[in-house]
């Protein structure tokens, strides 16, 4: 009764406290979403591949850009013990000459499993010379049905669908079928080789033959009971095997970036916890006389502390709702290219941490509650 009445009796005070904590919560959530957005933007197309494990060419340091698997390699991987299914995934650098402004992108060729792409608009399965593009490409003026002109290789793709959360190194992923990817890959590789050989045309047929029916990496499903470590043992040393999540965090400076991102989130959480703890500590200090009187009337320390815990629970719950609303509103107002990826699991973890820190911070208040002498309710400085 007491805690509720106090909350209701001082709506403005506690409303402002809830708003302040809500802003802190939103700061924590926005930081988390931006951090996740960075990670997703850097690795989404790779890390979200539907597979138990990704198999790279050996000694390529899990770099999608370096790995090459031939059709023979794909066959070895598909036949490996413990593998139930596999499909090739190709990667190539591309530049798109769009209506608005040229932009860089990454072509991803899928041999199978287009059903893994969440469809935002259009269809999710491209045919030959068709592409399903990450929705962030819309920021560059790409619309459904547009023709993507790939420069300088002079290839064209028709956009038949948009997907989401599929970017790589902050550029939109362009999903095509594997034969289309092969053509793009050979064309871009030939372009590079031509540059290196002073404009002399390399052996196109020989190169196309090498790439035929191959890919950059293989995505595999494992039999129940088979682990990534088991497959690593089976395929070593010619191939490196990791989970998609591990692959996502490898290369391109990701380990350092993840460290920085986690540091940012940890610091924002710690600051939030301290601020929330201080808020409740100050409100307790302001009530010293009142608490002394209640204790003099016969209230136990436990009774007073329970009131505080109840208020913390109510206020942090309201503040969390405010924080989530602010974060969602902020997210809705951001362009899709903005690194902003709200992850419910991350938010849940942040919420748990905020509640835990608020309760932990309340221990400062508990200490002050314990040392409030009920005799001070009577004492006016005389003995």
């Amino acid at each position, binding site marked *: *009764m007491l805690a509720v*009445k106090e909350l209701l009796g001082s709506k403005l005070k506690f409303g402002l406290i809830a708003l302040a904590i809500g802003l802190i919560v939103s700061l924590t959530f926005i930081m988390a979403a931006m951090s996740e957005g960075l990670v997703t933007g850097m690795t989404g197309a790779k890390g979200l591949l539907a597979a138990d494990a990704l198999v790279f060419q050996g000694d390529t340091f899990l770099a999608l850009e370096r790995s090459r698997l031939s059709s023979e390699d794909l066959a070895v991987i598909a036949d490996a013990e413990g593998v139930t299914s596999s499909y090739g995934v190709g990667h190539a650098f591309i530049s798109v000459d769009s209506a608005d402004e040229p932009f860089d992108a990454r072509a991803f060729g899928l041999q199978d499993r287009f059903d893994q792409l969440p469809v935002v608009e259009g269809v999710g399965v491209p045919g030959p010379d068709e592409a399903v593009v990450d929705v962030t490409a819309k920021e560059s003026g790409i619309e459904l049905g547009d023709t993507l002109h790939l420069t300088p290789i002079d290839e064209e793709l028709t956009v038949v669908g948009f997907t989401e959360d599929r970017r790589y190194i902050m550029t939109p992923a362009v999903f095509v079928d594997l034969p289309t990817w092969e053509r793009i890959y050979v064309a871009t590789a030939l372009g590079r080789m031509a540059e290196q050989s002073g404009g002399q045309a390399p052996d196109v047929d020989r190169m196309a033959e090498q790439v035929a029916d191959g890919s950059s990496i293989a995505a595999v499903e494992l039999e129940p009971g088979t682990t990534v470590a088991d497959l690593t043992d089976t395929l070593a040393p010619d191939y490196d095997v990791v989970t998609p999540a591990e692959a996502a965090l490898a290369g391109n400076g990701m380990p350092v970036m993840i460290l920085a991102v986690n540091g940012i989130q940890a610091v924002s959480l710690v600051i939030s916890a301290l601020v929330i703890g201080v808020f409740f500590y100050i409100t307790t200090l302001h009530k010293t006389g009142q608490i*002394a009187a209640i*204790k003099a*009337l*016969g209230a*136990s320390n436990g009774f007073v502390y329970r009131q505080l815990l109840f208020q913390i629970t109510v206020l942090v719950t309201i503040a969390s709702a405010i924080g989530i609303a602010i974060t969602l509103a902020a997210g809705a107002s951001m362009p899709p290219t903005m690194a902003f990826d709200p992850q419910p699991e991350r938010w849940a973890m942040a919420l748990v941490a905020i509640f835990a820190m608020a309760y932990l911070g309340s221990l400062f208040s508990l200490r002050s509650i314990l040392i409030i*002498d009920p005799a001070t309710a*009577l004492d006016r400085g005389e*003995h």
Partner: protein
Amino acid sequence: MSLLEVAGVSKTYGSGHARVTALDDVTFDLDTGRLLAVLGPSGSGKTTLLSIIAGLLEPSEGEIRIGGTPIHLRSSREAAAFRRAHVGLVFQEYHLIPYLTAEENLLLVPHLDGRVGREDRERASSLLGEFGLAGRMRHKPSALSGGERQRVAIARALMNDPEIMLVDEPTAHLDTDRGRQVVDLLRSHIRGRDMTCVMVTHDARMAKEADQVVRLLDGRLATA
């Protein structure tokens, strides 16, 4: 039979040269149904004595018994439970909870015991009616006059039907007439309920209204 027995109670603070004696060998008894005024100037030890009787402070020496039960040997938790059950406290500053109405301030007492039933609501309503506050039940302390707050504080002290009421300077913030009314109110309720009351005051005129007077001077009982 004496309801309150104060025997050889002393209270000292600090040690060595910093040692301060707040109470020195105070002894008196108080029978059931009587109003005792503890009279003395500021700093004479009145509040210390009241705090010791309430079990809020431990005496350095001596014994306090209420209804034969020693108060001074209890832990703070036991003393708090004893206060909830047997003691009514009225603070000089009232200490009404500002966000609770007059009625809710009274219901705080059973709430501390973990129970607020219909009987408690009826009792709160009845007490506020007796104190002429029937129309002010839903008012918060900020909407009450000083005299009304004082009466709410006294009604709150009566909520648990205490054996003993401890009242700190009940007339400090009131003019003479209103102060006398409060003391009359206290006396009538004490007699009507077979209750005992210790009232601390520095006002000799109010002390005259009591059945028994104990004078404190520099922590000691003053003779006449």
